[in-house]
């Protein structure tokens, strides 16, 4: 699966060009962006939700929102990949927590320092880096970080879930974040 070519469809066409075409109602441009990024979006949603069918709904929702509101994306503010990854994670957690999601301007969810993942090679390389970073973390820190990130739990919810003191959880998360800042840059 790792070595698929689907995300290389129209490799010379940048996200910015495809987004402009989506704004002009070009559905082939949306299909190209879907081929380029659906694997990332689905992977995050599936990891959070642990449910294929709900993860599929999240993927469809996110790309449908891109279709409806592409004109509100601000390419100067961040990358499409950044918006898709943050949205996938946030929307999946909202589903878990049964929070209502409203149709918002896409720029609001776009981190300004987000990664450029327009090619399959850059996606594979960055996934390997993040995977190595997670693998190198002490397991207690990794568990706390995964619970916070992929389950959307707060400090005290993690403490309650693991039976560990709140201060211990805070320390583990801070150490993990410190390593993250040193080891990975968008």
């Amino acid at each position, binding site marked *: *699966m*790792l*070595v698929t*070519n689907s995300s290389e469809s*129209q*490799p*010379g*066409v940048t996200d910015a060009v495809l987004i402009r*075409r989506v704004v002009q109602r*070009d559905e*082939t441009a*949306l*299909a190209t962006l879907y*081929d380029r990024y*659906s*694997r990332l979006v*689905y*992977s995050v949603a599936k*990891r*959070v939700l642990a449910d*294929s069918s709900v*993860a599929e709904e999240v993927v*469809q929702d996110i790309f*449908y929102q891109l279709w*409806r509101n592409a004109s509100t994306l601000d390419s100067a503010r961040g990358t499409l*990949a*950044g918006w898709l*990854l*943050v949205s996938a*994670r946030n929307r999946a957690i909202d589903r878990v927590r049964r929070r209502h999601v409203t149709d918002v301007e896409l720029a609001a969810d776009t*981190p*300004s*320092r*987000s990664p450029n993942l327009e090619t399959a*090679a850059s*996606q*594979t*390389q*960055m996934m*390997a880096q*993040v*995977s190595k970073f*997670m*693998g190198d973390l002490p397991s207690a820190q990794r568990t706390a*970080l*995964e619970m*916070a*990130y*992929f389950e959307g*739990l*707060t400090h*005290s919810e*993690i403490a309650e879930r693991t039976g560990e003191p709140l201060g211990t959880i805070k320390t583990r*998360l*801070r150490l993990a*974040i*410190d390593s*993250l*800042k040193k080891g*990975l840059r968008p």
Partner: protein
Amino acid sequence: MNGHPQFEEDFDLYAMGALEGEEKLALESHLRQCAECAAKLEEAHGRMALLALAAPSEVAPSAVKERLLRQIRADAPKVQASGAPAFLRWLAPAFAVAALALLVVAVELKIENRALLQKQSDLQSEAQVLRQETERERSVLDILTASDTVKVTLVSGAARPAPEGKAFYHPRKGLLFYTSNLPAAPSGRTYQLWIVPAQGNPISAGVFQVDSLGNGQVMLPALPPDVTAKAFAVTLEPAGGVPQPTGPKVLVGLVG
């Protein structure tokens, strides 16, 4: 909180949603008045986007794309239905006829223009796909025909039909790997291909699944250059793969 947060990590914890209570309220209050800390929060949001890539890689079923495209096509008539009548109401009847005629011409030109643009875009896409396929086939041919490509057969030694893999590897040109007769990986597991270098730890060459006939492949994975391979191996690992092998060896082949 009037001053900066005591811990720099608070920005990431806030971006992640882990911060709560007093700490969260204090940071939010401070962010409203401190541009420097607002910029740090932006950086934290970027790191949070990266962290999403820690999720095991999975491919959405093709039905999702089909449903999405059906959904946006269902939207199309609604978009076109609004606008024109309100616009025309503002025109005097005499101008309305002329405007309508111009509108018809403009729409025809727009349709023709769009058709031409679409055709141009399709041709460009087709050319790009062909270029990409040609480059890929040239890379494959390069590896298969280079005199210094090593060819390794990986076997399991089990009863027939025995699972088998063939690796074609050139340190600068890349790696091709084909396998046959492998059983489907159990749920939540995946096959992972490894290059075992002459020195150092195994290097992942990607994860793969097999089809209903037991065939799988890994084509030209991203690898560090100029690695001298001592052996190749396939292991069974958790879905998404792992940085270093942990599961049982399914296939192994030594170079030379």
